[in-house]
């Protein structure tokens, strides 16, 4: 009879670092770490030497010095006497603005195209295929500059509106070769603004928030919450008695009525653009560069979103629809209770990564002169101060922050909807 014996304990030899897989892992990691640190040290050392030769030591102090250039499109107060940091902040807000509006428009167009591409209608299906294949197989930068060229050359000059050669749409929207003018919301009994962060870091980051907007949003959200409570009550009654009280007018009313009343109390009215001199005054002026960037990015990303929506819906097997129909659900209910919850699980993660792509693509603004963060911090500030290293590092850091926050939202969502597996 033989008994199990432990493998003989070998004394540690140096060659085991290479030939023994237990120790080899450590060897490889140590070598990798040393190589990595050596590489980084080499680059840092070169950088220091080069910067010394150029007479520029890394220093972020320039950010608090006056910028000295103007930015023609901005969401917050800015003039050329303000700091470089302020200019970068204006640029950042511009980036976020075009990213948010772009994501919204791209989603709407994308869902529309994706659903229509699945339609049984042959002609419509083909048209949408042409849209998708055309848009996504051509570089987005080309679409941006192309659209920019078109909208600066094709629409009428503001002077043409005076001579009657061109008409405003509904007397309120003017599409000119200098941009699009749309009505602006105004409040005659305005509550004023509150200003935050005034006086911090040479006034670099202060901004004002309209109190009117806060009140409106608060009332609107309050209405939504009450409407939710009414729905819950209706659900409870349905559970208990089997009959559902009709509540849609009540739910609509509690959202809309208070909002309308507040709008009236604040004296809400529209300020229309007026032709004065050689140009339009009043209203909101959407500049060509903004419109070109916004529309081109949205159309381009919409083509990708359409494909995501289409494949998401197609991925739900036909059996699901049939099973829901067998349970006696109507087709609207089948969509909202069975198909969409499953399809969204597939659609949302790639959708968010498209949002991420769109946000990164807003950096192409520099090609059409829209002053986003790349145009201010990575463009004019960089060229004026000659601080390439600091500007580009900051720029990358800002984009990295935006990207990582979007992808953390995605990870949170993925975690939440993950199928519970054994």
């Amino acid at each position: 009879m033989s008994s199990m014996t432990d493998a003989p304990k070998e004394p540690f030899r140096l060659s085991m670092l290479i030939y023994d897989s237990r120790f080899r892992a450590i060897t490889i990691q140590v070598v990798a770490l040393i190589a990595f640190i050596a590489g980084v040290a080499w680059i840092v050392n070169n950088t220091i030497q080069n910067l010394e030769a150029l007479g520029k030591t890394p220093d972020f102090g320039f950010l608090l010095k006056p910028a000295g250039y103007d930015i023609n499109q901005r969401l917050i107060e800015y003039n050329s006497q303000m700091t470089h940091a302020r200019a970068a902040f204006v640029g950042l807000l511009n980036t976020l603005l075009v990213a948010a509006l772009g994501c919204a428009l791209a989603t709407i167009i994308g869902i529309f195209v994706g659903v229509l591409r699945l339609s049984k209608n042959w002609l419509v299906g083909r048209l949408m295929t042409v849209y998708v294949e055309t848009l996504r197989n051509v570089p987005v930068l080309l679409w941006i500059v192309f659209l920019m060229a078109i909208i600066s050359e094709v629409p009428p000059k503001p002077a043409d509106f005076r001579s009657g050669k061109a008409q405003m749409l509904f007397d309120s929207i003017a599409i000119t070769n200098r941009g699009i003018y749309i009505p602006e919301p105004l409040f005659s009994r305005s509550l004023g603004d509150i200003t935050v962060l005034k006086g911090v870091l040479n006034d670099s980051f202060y901004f004002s928030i309209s109190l009117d907007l806060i009140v409106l949003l608060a009332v609107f959200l309050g209405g939504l919450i009450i409407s939710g409570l009414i729905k819950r009550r209706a659900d409870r009654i349905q559970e208990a008695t089997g009959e559902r009280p009709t509540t849609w007018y009540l739910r609509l009313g509690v959202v809309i009525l208070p909002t309308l009343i507040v709008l009236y109390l604040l004296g809400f009215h529209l300020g229309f653009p007026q032709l004065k001199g050689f140009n339009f005054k009043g209203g909101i002026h959407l500049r060509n560069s903004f419109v070109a960037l916004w529309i081109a990015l949205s159309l381009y990303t919409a083509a990708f979103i359409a494909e995501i929506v289409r494949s998401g819906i197609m991925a739900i097997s036909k059996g699901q629809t049939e099973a829901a129909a067998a349970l006696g659900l109507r087709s609207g209910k089948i969509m909202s209770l069975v198909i969409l919850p499953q399809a969204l699980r597939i659609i949302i993660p790639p959708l968010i990564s498209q949002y991420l792509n769109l946000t990164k693509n807003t950096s192409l603004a520099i090609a059409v002169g829209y002053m986003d963060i790349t145009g201010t911090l990575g463009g004019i500030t960089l060229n004026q101060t000659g601080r390439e290293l600091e500007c580009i590092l900051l720029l990358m850091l800002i984009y990295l922050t935006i990207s990582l926050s979007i992808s953390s939202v995605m990870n949170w969502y993925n975690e939440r909807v993950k199928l519970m597996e054994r």
Partner: protein
Amino acid sequence: MSEQSYVRDEMLPELPPPATEVGIIGWMRENLFSGWLNTILTLIGIAIVYMAVSAALPWFLNGVWNANSLSECREILQGKSGACWGVIRDRFNQLMFGFYPHEEQWRPVLAFVLLLVAIAPILFNPMPLGMKIGWGGFILVGLWLLRLTGAPTLAYLVFLALALPVFHEKMARKILFFSALFPFVMVWLMWGGSAWYVISALLGFVIGYLAFRLLEPIIGFLFSIIVSVLVAIGWWFFLTAPFAAWMAGIIPLELTPVESRKFGGLMLSVMLGVTGIVGSLPLGIFLALGRQSDLLIVKSISVGFIEFIRGVPLITLLFVASTLLNIFLPPGTEFDIILRVMIMVTLFSAAYMAEVIRGGLAALPRGQYEAADALGLDYWKAQRLVIMPQALKISIPGIVSTFIGLFKDTTLVSIIGLLDMLGLANAIRATTAWNGIIWELYLFIAFVFWIFCFSMSRYSMYLERKLQTGH
């Protein structure tokens, strides 16, 4: 007595289906007018198609080709709708080659047709019959292009000698040898200068390999790898230049050198795209393996690199290439902007490639890894023989769409001042002759990109079907 008056004892002949259910009318009823919503959609669709065609077709067909400026073109048109295609004819050469010297343009053409020769055996082998006919057509077109750009006789011979064997399955496999050499050939053809520099750089690999084969039986696998890498690096650093100069003195193999600031147009995009693709796939595979690895430090370096690159827009990396890369390198290092851009583009797409391949690795059933382990394969053998072939196959659509994205992203170099087609378009629109031209120029560029990207996406579908092994 029978009460039955009549019983039919044979079948009635089949009636044809109603005319509204078959043929073109039936198809239209089913696909275009089935219900009021569909009818409305169809009518809207017809209206859109009609408006687009009625506006674009006369403009397109009425185009003027033989005009040398926009005003001349408008004179010829006399207020009628029509495209000024003259700009394409006038500037075609520039849009394709940038400012590459005119008498040397056969070199990029030769490089491009050889590129197709180099990838054909990888992409399509064996060739189906239809593709063989297409390949014959390609050879004729290639010869014609070479003739058009005034290539020397040797160029034709090289092209034919390499393109003809692709027809034959076994011979095509031998061409694969050329595919590996192609990057070096391309560098020489594009930049010119003495061929010996390229050849001696190539010799570095050969010497390293020989050293490895000679030493492996003596000092073992690991040490021989280390030694042969050191030998190759030593060759590149200390002996390449003297050797090349010496050989050039004996047998001069010279092409006129072309500076890279003269590169431009479609040629530049294709070059950046090809180097990016060739470089990013292997780099991406290593990054993906690093990210999947159990080794903590290797893993965190890979994750950090991938997430950093994916988190910033390409344009910031191009800014790094154009302004910062020289600061990161030892003082006094000067190298070419195109080379710097190539490095950045490759690193950028490698990070995306890594994520695509990681997806493929994750989609592979766990059993495949365990089976490979159970067979006693070591890590690299398991990867090479079991894991990678399957993981790469799963990730083909993603890999190809990364390639397409990379090719489209090459247009971004126009922002840092390189003259690709978009950069040239801006330059052309700024000249007096063509000031104010939009549609013709941009539509042409869009069309060129569309052809490249669309054919790549179709190829990926073909490959998916070809490699389909499931049921």
